[in-house]
C-alpha cells in the first residue's frame, strides 16, 4: 500500500517522462484558465470587498451571448465585439442598479446581491438563449483544431492546437492585466479603492468609474474563459462549474493577491491532473479532479488561514 502511494507513482513518472510532460501540459492548460478566472474574482474583491458569486454565470452568459449572436447570422468577430458591448452594458447596469444603492452596506449583503445577479443571469440567459447545450463557434473564430505531435525521448507528446491557443491568449491576457494594475494610474486606483474608500475619494478616484471598469474586466475575462472552455466542453450552464474551481484557487492564493491567484491557479491545475493520473486512477478509482482542489485548499487553510499569499492580518492594539 505504502509502496503504491510513495514509490510507484514516481517510478511511473520517471519511466515515462513523455507521458508526465503530457499530464503537466494538460494541467497547465486548465491551470491558466483557473488563474484567469480567479483574477476576475480578485479584481472585484480588491476594489470593492465583494466576493462576486456571479463570476461563474458571467462565463456562461458571455459564451451564450456570443453563440446566440452568431446564430442570428452575425459574423463571428463582430459577435465577439457585440458580446463585449453586452458585457459592458452588464457592468454599467450592475453598478447602477445593484452596487450603487448598496454602498456602505455590510459585505454579506453585497455578497447576497451577487447571488441575486447569478439567479437573474441564469433566468435571463435561459429565456433569451434557451437551456439546451450549444457548440462554441471555435472554427468561425479561427481557433485551430489540429494537433502537433512531438517526440521527446522517443516518446509521444500531443499538443492540441486549441490548447496552445488557450495558453497563449490567456497568458497574454494575464500579463496585460498585471501590467495594467501595476504600472498605470487606473490600475493603482483599482488597487487603492479596495484598501480605503475615503482615502480613494480624497485623491480623486471615482468609485463608480472604477467599479464599472472592474466589472467590465471581469466580463472580458468571462468571455475569454467562456470561449476557451466552451470550445473544449461545449456551451451549457454546466460551464459555471469552472468558476467554482476558482474558489479553492482563491483560498490557496488569498483573495487579495493577484500573484496568488495566478500561482494558485497554475498549482491547482497541474496538481489535480498529476494526482488524478498517478494516484487517483490507480488507487481511488479516478474522478478525483472534482474534489482534489478543495481538499488541497482545506489542508493549506489549516496551516495558513490567510492563504499562501494573502495579506497577513496583523492586529495592532
Amino acid at each position: 500500500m505504502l509502496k503504491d502511494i510513495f514509490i510507484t507513482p514516481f517510478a511511473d513518472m520517471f519511466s515515462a517522462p513523455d507521458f508526465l510532460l503530457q499530464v503537466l501540459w494538460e494541467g497547465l492548460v486548465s491551470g491558466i484558465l483557473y488563474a484567469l478566472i480567479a483574477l476576475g474574482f480578485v479584481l472585484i474583491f480588491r476594489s470593492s470587498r465583494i466576493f462576486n458569486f456571479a463570476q461563474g454565470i458571467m462565463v456562461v452568459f458571455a459564451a451564450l451571448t456570443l453563440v446566440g449572436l452568431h446564430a442570428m447570422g452575425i459574423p463571428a468577430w463582430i459577435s465577439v465585439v457585440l458580446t463585449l458591448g453586452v458585457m459592458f452594458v452588464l457592468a454599467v447596469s450592475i453598478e447602477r442598479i445593484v452596487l450603487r444603492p448598496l454602498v456602505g452596506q455590510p459585505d454579506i449583503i453585497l455578497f447576497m446581491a451577487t447571488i441575486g445577479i447569478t439567479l437573474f443571469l441564469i433566468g435571463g440567459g435561459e429565456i433569451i438563449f434557451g437551456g439546451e447545450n450549444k457548440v462554441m463557434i471555435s472554427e468561425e473564430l479561427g481557433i485551430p483544431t489540429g494537433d502537433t505531435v512531438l517526440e521527446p525521448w522517443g516518446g509521444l507528446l500531443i499538443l492540441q492546437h486549441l490548447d496552445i491557443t488557450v495558453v497563449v491568449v490567456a497568458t497574454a491576457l494575464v500579463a496585460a492585466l498585471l501590467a495594467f494594475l501595476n504600472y498605470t494610474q487606473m490600475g493603482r486606483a483599482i488597487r487603492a479603492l479596495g484598501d480605503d474608500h475615503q482615502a480613494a475619494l480624497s485623491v480623486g478616484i471615482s468609485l463608480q468609474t472604477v467599479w464599472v471598469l472592474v466589472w467590465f474586466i471581469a466580463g472580458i475575462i468571462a468571455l475569454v474563459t467562456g470561449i476557451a472552455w466552451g470550445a473544449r466542453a461545449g456551451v451549457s450552464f454546466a460551464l459555471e462549474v469552472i468558476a467554482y474551481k476558482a474558489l479553492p484557487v482563491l483560498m490557496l492564493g488569498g483573495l487579495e493577491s493577484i500573484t496568488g491567484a495566478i500561482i494558485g491557479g497554475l498549482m491547482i491545475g497541474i496538481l489535480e491532473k498529476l494526482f488524478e493520473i498517478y494516484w487517483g486512477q490507480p488507487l481511488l478509482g479516478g474522478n478525483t479532479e472534482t474534489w482534489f482542489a478543495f481538499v488541497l485548499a482545506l489542508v493549506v487553510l489549516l496551516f495558513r488561514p490567510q492563504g499562501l499569499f494573502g495579506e497577513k492580518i496583523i492586529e495592532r492594539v
Partner: protein
Amino acid sequence: MTETEGYVTADGRQIGGVLMELKDITLKFGGVTAISDISFDIHEGEIRAIIGPNGAGKSSMLNIISGFYTPTIGELWYKGKKRPQMKPFEVARMGVARTFQNIALFEGMTVLDNVMTGRLTHMKAGIGAQALWWGKARDEEVANREKVEEVIDFLEIQNIRKTPVGRLPYGLKKRVELARALAAEPSILLLDEPMAGMNVEEKEDMSRFILDVNDEFGTTICLIEHDMGVVMDLSDRVVVMDYGKKIGDGPPDEVRNNQDVIDAYLGVPH
C-alpha cells in the same frame, strides 16, 4: 465676490488674495447643529489654522471644504466662483488635497504606489491608452513618477519607498499621507490634525515639513490642530471654533488674547 487684496504677515511674507471663501456655513445632522453660521476665508499662500476644543466642528468644517459633507445652508466660493455641490473626488480634481485624522492610506500598497495615487488627479490619458501602455499614457506615467520622486525626496522618505505602508510606524504613515496629498500639487492642502498622537520629536519634524512645503511650493495650507502651541507657531491666521460657532479669527497673537478663546480652552460654564 470682492477681490480682497493680500496682506503681509508678521514675519514679512506677502500673502495673496482670497482663494477660498466660506459664507454663512451651517451644517446640521438631523436635529444636531454641528456648525452654525460660520464665515471665513483662506488666502492664497497662507497657513490657515482651525482650532477649537473637542466636538467644536473643526473636522466637519474640513469635510465641507473637501466635499465629504454638503453644508445645510451656506455657500463655498473657490477661485472667485461659487462651487456647486460636488462629490469628494470631483473636489479633489479641482485641486483640493487632504489628509485624515485617522490616517487613511492604502495599507496593502507600497509607499511609492501610495504617493503615486496622489497623481491621479493629473491623469489625462484615457483608460484604453493606459491599458495598452500607449504613447501619452507612458509619458504621463514617467512625468508623474518624476514629480513623486521629488516629493518623496522632499519629505525624506526615500529609504521606505518600497515598503508596504501597513508595516510603517504611525509617524511615518502620517508623513506618507502628507506626501500623497502633496503629490497632487494641490491649490489647497487640508491637514486634519497632522500632529495628533505624535511625540515631541515627530511633531517638530512635521511642523518643519509643513512650513517647508508652504515656503518651497507656496502651497496654501488649511490645518486643524488641537495643540495650541504648535498652531500658534505655524499659522498665519487662526479661526477658533467652539460648539459649532466661530469665536475668534485673526493672527495668532490676536487670537491668543481673545477672552472667548481663553474661556473656551480653560473651560467656562456655558
